[in-house]
């Protein structure tokens, strides 16, 4: 049924339809409304048989979810920014223990300087943590991805982070279709754990693994992620068949096919880029937009196939690896190794800086780009504040 809802509440209601048995909450902007929404649904008996725990930190939140999942119950939590950093040890632990927890990340910048606004720095800090990572473009997709996330996570025994742009999606009221409980139940059967804490079949989970076996553990985790690509694609097809709309999957293309220039992006900025691409194409341009929905495992093959005719790839990314530059753009560049194509890095929207359609159009229309472009950079400030360090050692 269609509703006009805040993104966070659309996510909360969809998560509730997935019937988690353990939900752990610790507040941090901008994800807080999601867990508040779930609290309301649980206390109001809209979601039954669920333990809702107010914990003392993000480390506590993910740890409680680890316990819940290890005891065989579907578990969920959400966080943002510093919260993800605070729990990062448990993030690696959850994937290492193969516990299919689903966590929403309301994407937000990392401090210092403290900044509560949106970018993807938090997600990038966990990109090698062994979790599957999805990025939502709209509130509809943000909601849907949670159903897909539980389904994929429990199939491959790997936790999933659903990235949702903080404020831009979490706090935006938009039209969202919330599916019926029956449909979700049909799509997502009860959780059947691989191994759990069971007195009738006692197992030890999380033992120390010495050098003789450790490399194999990591190798298998890598193979599992690679195999998950097909599962993610197939699950998205099944979702479309069941719910009648395209959500999730590996990537999505929009605009003029076989365009010279392809704009690659993740998350909600794709919407503004699509509007820009439409206008540019109406003005006689040849542009395509490509959203990466599944960022981990990285869909290298699908991406290479989609980009094989491109002359120029502009990667618009909301993160920066200080000391090296773009993160997603490096990955795209590696993916396209051997192809005759320019990969251009456009860092945009850091710490909530506005990304407007006109800024994007101007950037996409430029004939040549710097090695790395900072969209909307205030050069007056840089001119005043940048003092080159001389190359002497003392």
């Amino acid at each position, binding site marked *: 049924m269609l509703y006009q809802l805040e993104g966070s509440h659309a996510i909360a209601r969809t998560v509730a339809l997935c019937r988690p*048995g353990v939900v752990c909450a610790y507040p941090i902007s901008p994800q807080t409304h999601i867990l508040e929404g779930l609290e309301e649904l649980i206390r109001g008996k809209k979601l039954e048989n669920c333990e809702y*725990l107010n914990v003392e*930190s993000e*480390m506590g939140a993910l740890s409680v979810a*680890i316990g*819940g999942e290890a005891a065989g119950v579907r578990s969920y939590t959400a966080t943002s920014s510093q919260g993800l950093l605070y729990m990062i040890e448990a993030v690696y632990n959850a994937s290492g223990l193969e516990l299919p927890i689903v966590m929403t990340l309301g994407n937000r910048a990392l401090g210092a300087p403290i900044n509560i606004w949106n970018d993807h720095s938090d997600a990038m800090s966990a990109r090698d943590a062994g979790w599957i990572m999805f990025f939502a473009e709209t509130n509809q997709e943000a909601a849907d991805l949670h159903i897909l996330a539980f389904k994929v996570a429990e199939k491959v025994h790997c936790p999933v982070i659903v990235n949702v742009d903080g404020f831009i999606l979490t706090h935006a009221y938009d039209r969202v279709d919330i599916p019926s409980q029956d449909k979700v139940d049909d799509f997502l059967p009860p959780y059947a754990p691989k191994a759990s*804490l069971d007195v009738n079949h*006692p197992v030890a989970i999380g033992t120390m693994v010495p050098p003789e076996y450790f490399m194999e553990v990591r190798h298998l985790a890598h193979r599992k992620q690679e195999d998950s690509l097909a599962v993610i694609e197939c699950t998205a097809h099944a979702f479309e068949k069941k719910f009648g709309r395209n959500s999730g999957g590996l990537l999505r293309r929009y605009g003029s096919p076989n365009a010279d220039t392809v704009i690659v992006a993740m998350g909600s900025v794709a919407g503004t880029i699509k509007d820009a691409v439409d206008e540019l194409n109406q003005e006689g341009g040849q542009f395509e937009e490509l959203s990466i929905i599944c960022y981990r495992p990285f869909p290298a093959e699908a991406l290479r196939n989609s980009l094989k005719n491109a002359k120029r790839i502009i990667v618009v990314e909301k993160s920066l690896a200080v000391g090296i530059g773009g993160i997603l753009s490096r990955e795209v560049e590696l993916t396209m190794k051997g192809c005759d194509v320019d990969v251009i890095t456009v860092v945009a929207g850091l710490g909530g800086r506005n990304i407007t359609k006109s800024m994007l159009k101007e950037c996409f229309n430029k004939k040549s780009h710097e090695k790395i472009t900072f969209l909307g950079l205030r050069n007056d400030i840089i001119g005043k504040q940048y003092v080159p360090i001389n190359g002497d050692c003392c």
Partner: protein
Amino acid sequence: MSHLTIGNRLEKNVTAQSMYDRSNSLTSGHRACQGCGEALAARCILDAAYIATDGKVAVINATGCLEVFSCVYPENSWQIPWLHSLFGNAPAVATGVAAAFKRQGKENVRVIAQGGDGALADIGMGCLSGMFDRNDDVLCVCYDNQAYMNTGVQRSGATPAFSRTATTLPTGDYLGNDVQTGKNLPKIAMAHGIPYVATASVSNIHDLEKKVAKAIHLKGARYLHVHVPCPLGWGYPTSETIKVARLAVQCGLFPLFEAERGKVIKSTPINAPLKVEEYLKGQRRFAHLFGKNASSDALITLQNIADDNIREYALVGDPNE
């Protein structure tokens, strides 16, 4: 439970460890040091919990000696459901397990979180306090060997005054760990007003088992703090773990008591307290307090701590009564 009677032990005084069909929750073959107080206490506690729950117990273990020596893949000494996650989160993971069991209608399966003093007094105190605060249905057991033994005997928040550790080496005027620092975890637990807090010693198995049997069935957050000497870290012969533990109790430095809802309800009397020297002198970690550079001030300070405990927990009955 059937068992063999050995010697003149009376049936009601038999400990789980003397039963021929004991559960061996932590079975033989593990890699603990000879004389490890923690390994001994863990087996006693978990076997007692196993008997009291008819085998319905699951354990969440913090990182530390107990985790490292008990299971290095592909070997494993645990005969009960067991999970290790991280150093600082065992109480929170246990909360999640208890919540899941409740959700599954398996509240009869009792959940134990366990770890050392480093895991619980230091790095995991936030998660421990949160578990107490929410009164989650978890029994947390702290194996207190008074330093970070797994990493090579560094000071923890539970290291006693004047103790020598790798990071509090007595040098010149410095006599080892400072006085009036450190955390009293049983009191911190009591301050949360949780249903049950107790201290126990690996030297008194009967008392330890009784407290486990009581605590395991209580609802809500419970805390058991067990004094477990470490021959390696404390520097005493591996054959003397029980003796060292007993001396700590008998001199008053480690009082045994039970508390409910923040109030001490019972303590184990020590009718003729020993001087603290009797406990300290056999341990290398306190050796700098004796011998040619002996510090009588330090010994007086430690004796005062013991005397304060004796008064506070009424460990010696009034002889006039």
